[in-house]
């Protein structure tokens, strides 16, 4: 699907792109992502880049907004886009955040550009009369995304930076227990770097409340066919499987994700080398 860039702007360390893409805007649910072709005609980059959808608006039949952090050549190319350029998009992709049926208290935790995905979620939760509180963190002030909007939208917003340049010095997981206690949180939603998701999940486990995490794994296809984006996740049957972040995620129950084992094949995973572990569970 081709989308036309409507506007671009710098937001602190990030580049925000608003793209006219009615087909995506229409089917979007919070937590979905989109994959974007990068490099233009004749490029040497053969894989798409995954981007969370930050915002969806009804203008021009439907626009989506992305927030891009420049990491390598693909994101650098995206950051160079200008109004009227076209983008080749596939999406919405992945499984969105599950929403609670009842009006519960939700803490939304975002790290770096991971916060971007939380605002559409906050809207959806508030439409269900959930209470929404934010905890946003990053390495430094210019990398905390969405602080103003969080302040506008959430009941409370707690900010952390590792260098102390904004909010409290430290990491989101340092302040999260206090917030969870204060707001009587029933559920945590989190998006950000894997290390942060691990720590946030640990907090949820401590408080015995569910954590929904949107993970980030290097992806080649985004549609579930290449099997490069896998991580070890424990299934309903107690068996660990290497599941696809793109098609089975990116949202998982935090306590099901074996964060310490990401980047490995746990010995007890289904089909792990040696044929040990849960491989026996299978007929």
């Amino acid at each position, binding site marked *: 699907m081709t989308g036309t860039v409507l506007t671009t702007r710098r937001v602190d360390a990030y580049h925000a792109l608003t793209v006219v893409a009615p087909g995506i805007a229409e089917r979007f649910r919070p937590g979905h992502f989109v994959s974007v072709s990068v490099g233009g005609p004749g490029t040497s980059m053969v*894989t798409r880049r995954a981007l969370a959808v930050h915002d969806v608006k009804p203008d021009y039949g439907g626009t989506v907004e992305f927030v891009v952090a420049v990491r390598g050549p693909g994101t650098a190319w995206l950051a160079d886009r200008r109004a009227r350029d076209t983008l080749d998009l596939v999406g919405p992709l992945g499984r969105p955040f599950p929403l609670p049926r009842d009006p519960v208290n939700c803490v939304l935790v975002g790290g770096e550009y991971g916060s971007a995905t939380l605002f559409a979620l906050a809207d959806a939760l508030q439409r269900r009369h959930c209470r929404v509180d934010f905890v946003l963190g990053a390495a430094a002030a210019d990398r905390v995304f969405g602080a103003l909007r969080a302040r506008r939208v959430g009941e409370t917003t707690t900010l952390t930076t590792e260098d102390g340049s904004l909010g409290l010095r430290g990491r989101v997981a340092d302040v999260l227990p206090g917030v969870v206690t204060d707001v009587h949180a029933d559920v945590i939603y989190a998006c950000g770097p894997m290390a942060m998701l691990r720590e946030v999940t640990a907090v949820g486990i401590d408080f015995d409340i569910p954590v929904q995490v949107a993970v980030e794994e290097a992806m080649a296809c985004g549609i579930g066919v*290449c099997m490069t984006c896998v991580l070890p996740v424990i299934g309903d049957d107690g068996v660990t499987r290497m599941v696809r972040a793109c098609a089975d995620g990116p949202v998982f129950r935090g306590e099901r994700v074996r964060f310490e084992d990401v980047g490995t094949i746990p010995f007890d995973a289904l*089909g792990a080398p040696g044929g040990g572990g849960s491989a026996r569970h299978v007929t």
Partner: protein
Amino acid sequence: MSLDVPAVDMRTYLAHVELANPVTTAAGCAGTGRELSQFFDLGRLGAHTTRTITMAPRAGRPTPRMTETPSGLLNAVGLQGPGIEAFLGRELPWLAQRSIRTVVSIGGGSVAEYTALARRLADAPGVTAIEVNLACPNIEDRGRVFARDGAASAEVVASVRSVTRYDVPVVAKLSPDVTDVVAVARACVDGGADALSMINNPLGVCIDVDTLRPALAAVSGGLSGPAVRPLAVRCVWQVHAALPGVPIVGVGGVMTGRDAFELILAGACAVAVGTALFHDPLAAVRILKELEDALAARGFQRLADAVGLAHRPPGSGSRHLEESSL
């Protein structure tokens, strides 16, 4: 309906099996079929090739499993898959119900394992062909990859052929990382292969200059995408020149109809699309359309007339490929 009548007769044959058109998915690049079927009707392709199915479930390699390279992708997925029983229970029936022509790719660590897989497939409905992925380490030969050794490849092929129904072609999938791809191809054909598929990924390594470590957890991986297309076209060219009667599935870096056409002119009668699917879920149907248009634009009425055509310049004999470019 008349708009659907193709201008070009796109039918092709994998040995005696007719395919409606020459475009298939490449093994390991199209998931279970379900994923792509959200984007288009898989039945429109000549065939769908499964990921390589193994006896036991496999968790594959640790991540990172992939890194981008110039015009290519380096991957080490490690044949992650559910194993043959789950495949027969959940994946093949889904394809068979939809009458999707299915080439089942199989991989094992020994001749016996390949043979056992082929036996399990013998009674399964919906198997159009069996593709023998020879790029698997032979546990009985210190992990040497079958595809690197003509004799070992031939042994696998012969054994699979012997337990497979006569009307199901056995396709040997070859690697380019050999000194003499024609010798391996010939050994496979002598062993009973009805067709050949080439190329599987050449082995590559990338180092991350920031972590100072290999970019892939598995260190080495398979290179795919447009970067390898000249190698694929070369292998197809060489093997078609040496074994002109053997059907070849061309694979490697096909992103457009022109790329598919290149492999066909070099001697492939079918073309598999792999890495392109990662970039464009509709790649296979787009490529089919582009190929048909390219053939029509050049006045071809039948795909079959283009197969291997680049070997026969008007008014001269077929040209021989020299081993060295120098």
